[in-house]
């Protein structure tokens, strides 16, 4: 194989759902920590192929919602149906196995590893040569490593981070770290990608880049995206539907236009005159 990288398609798995079908359905979910209610009786759905924004003031329960979706928290009440299957207590690695990937609000990269290794780590679940081949690092183990490297290079090209391939991620500026984290999640080739404040702390150009990547991931790879974001301009521009939370309750749901016109949402963000 020569320097030319053969083209590898990265895309979400075919799960029989058509764009627009409900992929993840959340029904009457409640979550509390002791006496503190983080989420109260929230229902909404995420449809295949859409960009779904979850917004709300600080402490509204947005991140808790993501944590429920990928199995870090187990809600006391309610059901979550992913691709038609209601799930019981799910562990994070099982969520990963079923095709849910995510990024974190505070970058959660593997600081001691290079950009390349970080993104390779997203391929963990797709690698399966056994311990003995791994010890020898020949035959299947080496071929597997190279095959996945090809996919990872696709992502590196897509995110335009070729120059920092071998740089330890701890040395990278914040904006690039966010980008590497997106790459790591993309390496899992998820069906559902959860982004927790992908634009936080970025300047305008970085936000524009990130928006472009999110839109491209959505349209080219067919990945369904749920994102939490505080930059309303970005949210209104790129998302198909928006759900608004406040104090753990849902106060609005619909297209960006509908949500913008919703009086409860305006009150939550701007306050109510007394």
């Amino acid at each position, binding site marked *: *194989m*020569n*320097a030319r990288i053969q083209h590898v398609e990265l895309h979400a798995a075919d799960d029989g759902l058509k764009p627009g079908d409900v992929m993840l359905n959340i029904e009457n979910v409640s979550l509390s920590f002791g006496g503190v209610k983080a989420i109260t009786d929230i229902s909404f759905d995420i449809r295949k192929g859409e960009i779904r924004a979850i917004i709300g003031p600080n402490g509204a329960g947005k991140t808790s919602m993501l944590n429920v979706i*990928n199995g*870090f928290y187990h809600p006391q009440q309610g059901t979550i149906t992913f691709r038609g299957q209601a799930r019981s207590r799910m*562990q*994070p*690695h099982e*969520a*990963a*196995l079923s095709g849910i*990937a*995510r990024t*974190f609000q505070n970058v*959660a*990269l*593997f*600081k*001691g*590893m290079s950009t390349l*290794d970080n993104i*390779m*780590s*997203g391929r*963990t*679940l797709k*690698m399966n*040569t056994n*311990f003995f081949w*791994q*010890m*020898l*690092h020949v035959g299947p*183990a*080496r071929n*597997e*490593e*190279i095959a996945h*490297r*090809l996919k990872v*290079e696709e992502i590196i090209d897509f995110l335009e981070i070729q120059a920092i391939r071998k740089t330890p991620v701890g040395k990278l500026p914040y904006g690039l770290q966010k980008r590497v984290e997106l790459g*790591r999640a993309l390496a*899992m080739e998820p069906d559902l990608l959860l982004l927790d404040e992908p634009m936080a702390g970025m300047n305008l150009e970085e936000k524009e880049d990130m928006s472009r990547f999110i839109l491209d991931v959505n349209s080219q790879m067919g990945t369904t995206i749920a994102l939490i974001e505080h930059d309303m301009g970005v949210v209104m521009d790129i998302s198909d539907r928006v759900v608004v939370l406040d104090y753990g309750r849902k106060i609005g749901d619909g297209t960006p236009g509908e949500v913008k016109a919703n009086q409860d949402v305006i009150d939550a963000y701007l306050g109510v005159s007394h």
Partner: protein
Amino acid sequence: MFYRESGQYKTTYESDQAIFPIREDRIGIAIIMAMALITPFIASEFILASIMIPFLILALGTIGLNVLTGYAGQLSLGTGAFMGAGAYACYKLATIFPDINIVVLILLSGVFSAGVGILFGLPSLRIKGLYLAVTTLAAQFFLEWCFIRIPWLYNYNASGAIEVPERRGFGDLILTGPSATATTRYYVVLAIVVVVTLVVKNLVRGRIGRQWMMIRDMDIAAELMGVRPLWAKLSAFAVSSYLAGVAGAMFVFFYLGAAEPSSFGISLSFQVLFMAILGGLGSLVGSFFGAAFIWILPIALRVGLPAVGVDVGAEIIFQIAQMAVGALIIFFLIAEPHGLARLWAIGKEKLRVWPFPYA
């Protein structure tokens, strides 16, 4: 100038992912290997038996600890005991199967210490950091107790020690026992250490090593990428204590010749931990640096000080050497907390852009 990466283009990922992708590194490692091979011809018996053999064995033990602490991020103070488990397992195996090649038995004895390691690694699923270190300390004391209190382990010897029996292999070469030559023992140790180091390198650069590092750097994100903490942590404990076990077995069979339970005490655990920290956690080459620093430097000082005219008696020389090593450890850790391996990496980076300060 003489360490230049530029111009060495890689056209396959295979060559990019090689252990030594840079030509100068390959030349360097070839020279080091050649020197290691000719050492017995130019070095004295003392250098072979008292410096090189224990240095290589302890380097392997340090690699073992590095897998656990440096790569998987689980602090352990039980390395000495795991080395002991390997040594006693090898002693029993050599007693039960006198006809099997001792090298096979040494590699096999690591399996027993790996089992012990998994057992004492179980708390790591719940406990982290210093608290985990304390549970491994329990392993240290428990195993030491076993070495003293279970006479079966030392074949009911009146002295309570294990004495290495004479074993032959590879034709009729005497491999172990009092009449085995230092040269033979050195070559066997060198071969085992090189091969095992290569295997560990393969592990840490592949999927399994990445899983360990994922758990070390951010366990929550690791779980989300599909790593099962149970598997990742216990496999790190298993590999780590396997390596410690092999090192321990070699320590007795090729270096000490006879061992008591106190040979595998807490001081050995700390010695290996110092080697790992000073050499650089999460680095295989650092394990060799650390082992060399802690093992060879005191001997070099003890031999070297009288040679340059400082002659104040053996006892004082010994203490001066101890103090100097202690001071140097503190100095190096202040200068570079990530150990000698990081200094080495920085040096290579500087050479790469030399004579310019940065690229």
